[in-house]
């Protein structure tokens, strides 16, 4: 039950982009084409899930026993940066085709605030390692869903006449707002399941 409720919350009711404003830079920056959005979602899905595991383990086995919670921010960003680097090296050696597909998106993920945000939210909600990982996966799925829908919308703009002043960011933000409004509709839907 907890699994379902975390999943539903991560993907729909508290979607990282539409409800929590996490990972917006990458969302607006890399959603111009569906293919690149797909590549980025793959990288985020992979990194966010396991970065949450690593960060939660780091919290449980190092920060808490030594009473170092006040250094959490520095510790987490280093853990995430190191983890991304590790994933990069590992993929380069073992899965070169996947590595090529993800390309420049892997190093960019270090500064994607959704990853650090997910790890921070896990601490705030007291999720531990297992549920923290599930929450990371759910958050990444929600993020991917959002960027894929949005990339689909943006591809259609090419065939439309858009007023000059709205081109680029203004229109992107307004349409994100409208999608966010749609996602707001989910918030009451699962009240009974989540309880």
């Amino acid at each position, binding site marked *: 039950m907890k699994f379902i409720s975390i999943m539903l919350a991560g993907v729909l009711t508290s979607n990282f982009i*539409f*409800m*929590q*404003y*996490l*990972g*917006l*830079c990458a969302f*607006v920056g890399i959603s111009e084409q569906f293919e690149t959005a797909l590549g980025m979602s793959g990288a985020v899905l992979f990194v966010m899930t396991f970065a949450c595991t690593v960060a939660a383990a780091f919290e449980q086995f190092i920060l808490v026993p030594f009473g170092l919670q*006040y*250094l*959490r*921010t*520095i510790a*987490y*960003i*280093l853990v995430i*940066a190191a983890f991304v680097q590790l994933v990069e090296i590992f993929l380069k050696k073992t899965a070169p085709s996947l590595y090529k597909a993800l390309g420049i998106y892997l190093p960019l993920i*270090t*500064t*994607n*605030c959704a*990853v*650090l*945000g997910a790890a*921070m*939210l896990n601490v*705030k909600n007291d999720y531990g390692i297992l549920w923290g990982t599930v929450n990371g996966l759910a958050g990444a799925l929600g993020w991917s869903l959002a960027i894929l829908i949005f990339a689909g919308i943006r591809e259609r703009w090419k065939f439309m006449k858009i007023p*000059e*002043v*709205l081109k680029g*960011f*203004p*229109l*992107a*933000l*307004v349409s*994100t*707002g*409208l999608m*966010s*409004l749609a996602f*707001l509709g989910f918030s009451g839907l699962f009240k009974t399941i989540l309880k």
Partner: protein
Amino acid sequence: MESKRSLIGEFTKGLIEENATFRMAIGMCPTLAVTTSLVNGFWMGVAVIFVLTFSNVFVSILRKVTPDEIRIPIFVILIATPVVIVELVMNAYLPEMYRLLGIFVPLIVVNCLIIARAEAFAYKNSVIRSALDGLGIGTGFMINLMVIGAIREFLGTGRLAFGSVAFPAEPLFEPMAVMLTPPGGFVTLGVLMAILNILVRRAQLRKAKASA
């Protein structure tokens, strides 16, 4: 390349010309997340000014001894240090505000605005210029947050609150609660950017006419 502006120019460019939110569209997450009220925007802005100035100064001091290949991890540590200072100070003296801003205070670490200034400016310029750049860009960012916060708060609650004082005392109209929710934030920023684009175009047209 070294910057060739005057020292005052380093400060003022952050206000309009290189305004973080509207001209460069970076640092979006906090811009939307914490701007449900004017006061929130103000304190987030103060935190960003401090972090940005601090990190710019230290990146600049260490720029000659920083190896090119590992500069990003070094920047990240230089940025994380002031962020932790801000976190601890805010938690001690402004616990209420710290709770309201939530995870967006630690998330200043991954705010692309700060790493962008380290990479694009502080890594190539002198300490004084970098400090002024940090102060200027940070102040510009704070003004953006306050403007967006004021608009959303005014439309969303019908008035502006400063601590325990609210102006006007009674809401002037039926508050639009949607402005305080995420969709309201996205639409507000989008519309503001569009309005700014119109103004910039007008100014350019006028300049072109004057020179013609």
